């Protein structure tokens, strides 16, 4: 099973990286009001059971892949 984890800065959290990307895009002429930069993590899992895999990945996100103080995460599974 393949998993894709999307980690984002939570709303309201200052994202200087996103601001730098936004201002660069504007300099290129793109009309962008806001940019937020997150992270994508692709994983391959042995787990065949989707519910179990999701529970496992949530623990992985809470413990390492995201810092819950400042980041939210989404898990997408693909068998």
């Amino acid at each position, binding site marked *: 099973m393949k998993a894709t984890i999307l980690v984002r800065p939570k709303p309201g959290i*200052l994202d*200087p*990286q996103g*601001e*730098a990307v936004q201002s660069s895009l504007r300099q290129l002429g793109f009309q962008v009001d806001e940019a937020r930069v997150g992270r994508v993590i692709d994983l391959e899992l042995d787990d065949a059971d989707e519910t179990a895999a999701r529970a496992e990945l949530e623990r992985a996100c809470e413990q*390492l*892949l995201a*810092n819950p*103080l*400042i980041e939210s995460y989404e898990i997408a599974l693909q068998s």
Partner: protein
Amino acid sequence: MSDRPRPRIAVVTFPGSNDDLDAALALDRLGADATLVWHAEPELPDLAAVVLPGGFSYGDYLRCGAIARFAPVMKAVRRFAAEGGLVLGICNGFQVLCEAGLLPGVLRPNASLSFICRDVAVCVEHADTPFTSRAEPGQSLTIPVKHGEGCYFADAELLRELDANGQILLRYEENPNGSVAAIAGVANETANVFGLMPHPEHAVDPLLGSTDGALILGSLVDAARERMLTAA
């Protein structure tokens, strides 16, 4: 001075630490017996305090400090801290302590996105701790910072708690990096674990422009000595 017993203080070297030798040198000069401990060690030697130094442990992959917290030695550091042992994290060491949950909050990229490397003035908020006892409350210290990710973040509720418990030990006089409430250094609730972004080990010799860092590290040496003598 010289006949006073020298408390043993461990400085942990992670792959990518680069201020470990400076920290050890500064601690030695301030009357400690500094000893370097490699990150892969599962146990700490018998000691009176631990310092996690500055640098870029594990290349700062994922988030700074996020991987270092899994180093074998961190289990021992966690136990040491839980037993009330003195733990100081400087810069990357502060980031590691936050990621490890030994200190509240988290450090993020500077609001300016620039790497900052210069002297800053910090105000000592509380002097009744093992890390600030040589300073006076309200005293202004000049200590260099050098970091790209020193923007301290805690949400409003945590911030209120930190303030109420007196855990904010140092604040920037002019906020260089966007930290909430201009926080430069924060302690745990029991004040035996402390992390700060400025580098006291780079401010212990007049040749380097300031000796104010000696007030922080000297406080730690005093407290470590006291603990060593009490334990003996």
